[in-house]
């Protein structure tokens, strides 16, 4: 089997299989959450639940780095907040605005949009990588995160790191490895990541919208700033 044939396999059939596992897995998780039902809040409302939702999203999505700036004096906050913001912003730009990725979106969803020039996206990729490395180091340095971090967190970090670093290496033709093999490594790590997400906390990109909405509803209903 030649390198080209392997590449065809990992970016063709294998990618499609991963995509199916991802889609079915995520739908299963979403339905499980919805089917288990929500307990109703019976206390008489003191404010608008909807306003709470609007405010909580406005605070966390519009303001960089995606996180509510609630406790400015905290000693544990800055690194996690900024590294987290860097990582997520970088990741989304790479995922959604790199031209070759938009081609993949078009192949999968049938829709496309204009991308950013690759050198700019490259900057965001570096930002994501640096963010991820900082987050990982913080898990080792900070006694709180050291206590909380288990094997599954490390696996998640590793499985997200691979697609990013291989993709970045492809663009820069790094490590003296043949481009086709870098491409294969990139696709294998992407395929693995896609299949892994539904079984892991990386699914938080979806549950985020459930928990954030709940938070906004609860605080809004109380008439308290979320």
């Amino acid at each position, binding site marked *: 089997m030649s390198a080209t044939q392997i590449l065809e396999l990992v970016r063709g059939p294998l990618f499609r299989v991963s995509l199916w596992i991802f889609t079915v897995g995520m739908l299963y998780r979403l339905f499980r*959450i919805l089917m288990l*039902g929500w307990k109703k809040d019976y206390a008489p409302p003191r404010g608008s639940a909807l306003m709470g939702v609007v405010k909580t999203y406005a605070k966390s999505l519009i303001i960089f780095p995606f996180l509510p700036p609630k406790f400015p004096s905290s000693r*544990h906050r800055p690194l996690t907040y900024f590294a987290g913001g860097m990582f997520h912003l970088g990741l989304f730009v790479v995922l959604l605005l790199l031209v070759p990725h938009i081609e993949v979106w078009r192949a999968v969803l049938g829709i496309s949009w204009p991308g950013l020039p690759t050198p700019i996206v490259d900057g965001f990729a570096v930002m994501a990588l640096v963010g991820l490395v900082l987050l990982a180091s913080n898990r080792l340095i900070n006694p709180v995160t050291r206590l909380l971090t*288990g094997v599954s967190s490390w696996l998640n970090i590793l499985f997200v790191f691979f697609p990013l670093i291989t993709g970045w290496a492809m663009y820069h033709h790094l490590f003296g490895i043949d481009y086709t093999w870098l491409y294969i490594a990139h696709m294998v790590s992407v395929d693995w990541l896609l299949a892994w997400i539904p079984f892991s906390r990386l699914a938080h990109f979806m549950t985020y919208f459930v928990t954030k909405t709940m938070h906004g509803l609860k605080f809004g209903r*109380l008439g308290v700033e979320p």
Partner: protein
Amino acid sequence: MDATDKLANYFVQRIDGQVLAQLESCLQCGLCASACPFFLGTDNPEHVPIRKIEPLKVIVQRELSPGRRLFSWLGLTPPRPDEVTLQQWVSQAYLACTVCNRCALACPMGLDLGSLIQLTREGLAAAGLVPPSLADAVERQKHTGSPLGVPQDLYEDRLRWISEEEGVTIPLDVEGAESLVVFTSIELIKFPGNIAALAKILNTAGEHWTMSTAGREAVNFATFSGETEEQVAFVKRITEAALQLNVRRIILSECGHAYDTVRRIAGRLYGQPLPFQIENVLETISRLIATGRIRLRRDVFNKERITFHDACKLQRLGGLIEEPRFILNTIAPTSFVEMTPNREAQLCCGGGGGVIANPEADEIRMKAFLPKVEQLESILPDVVVTACSTCRLQFIDGTRYYNLDVTVRGITEMVAEALITDG
């Protein structure tokens, strides 16, 4: 069935989509640490809020997580908790947490950690693991009507004594009154001035009010212990008294958790709209000021520097944020200063959620008060005003322990002091 089985059973039955989504969203980022007075006061990573729901997380990973078979095959599933682990969980959830829910504001995923910790306590209660001092208080409340063990005759005696001592009329069991006022036994025993003060305010306002012998306790120790059946039963004592006396409104005194507990459970029991209004004393006083039914002097407290301690249960979890400010800006317009952070971002005093009732928690309770000491030292007030009797007890203990020259007062008493009574 052993304790672990009971715990697992309770969680599996009670976990709904909200809880599951939250548990599956936690990324172990540790940001909740920065919100928690128990962590800030001790610097011990074991007191990070998310550690307090370890029982829920472990049970869900073992019983409900989507990849549990894969993970158990890989050897990544957490082990079944042994006796030692269970005891650690109990200390974390009951001794090192007031369920103040400040962590919910720090969480980037928006997890409502307070309600998850409450659910954890419920599971531990279902497994028979409530710490003895809390379990005893619930028993006392069940049998005598008060967690402090105040039976009906002592209650009546005490009210009569307050009434004579302070020269105020305290109506008891008056059918058809407008408002039923429910105090806590902490006030009855330790802060009787609160009762006299509110009686004076309501009498001056011409409010047709009453107290009740059946519904005489605002405190609900089952909220702290997580015993849901008893919790509802204790709320019913108040709501049924209100229905029986045919009042339009229940007024809950200076108590933190009562407001949230009674509103939530009454809503579940009677549907909406409720057959009566539920008011906290802060709302009552604000209403009486706003409608001109009481008039207050604005110069009584202008020589002292006055600050207000927001209570976790009344402000962040009750939404009563503007009321105390309205009141204090009326009676102390020039001398009222805010602590920072305040309002919904307030730092909890570290005494609520049953912590203060647990002698085992005494040491950590004082450590959890440390962030509050820093706050006080940055503005150096003469008087700290609270609207929650537990906060008040904690502040009295804490300021004494750390040698702070601060007077701790209840807001009702201060309003009564500023009250203008004609003739």
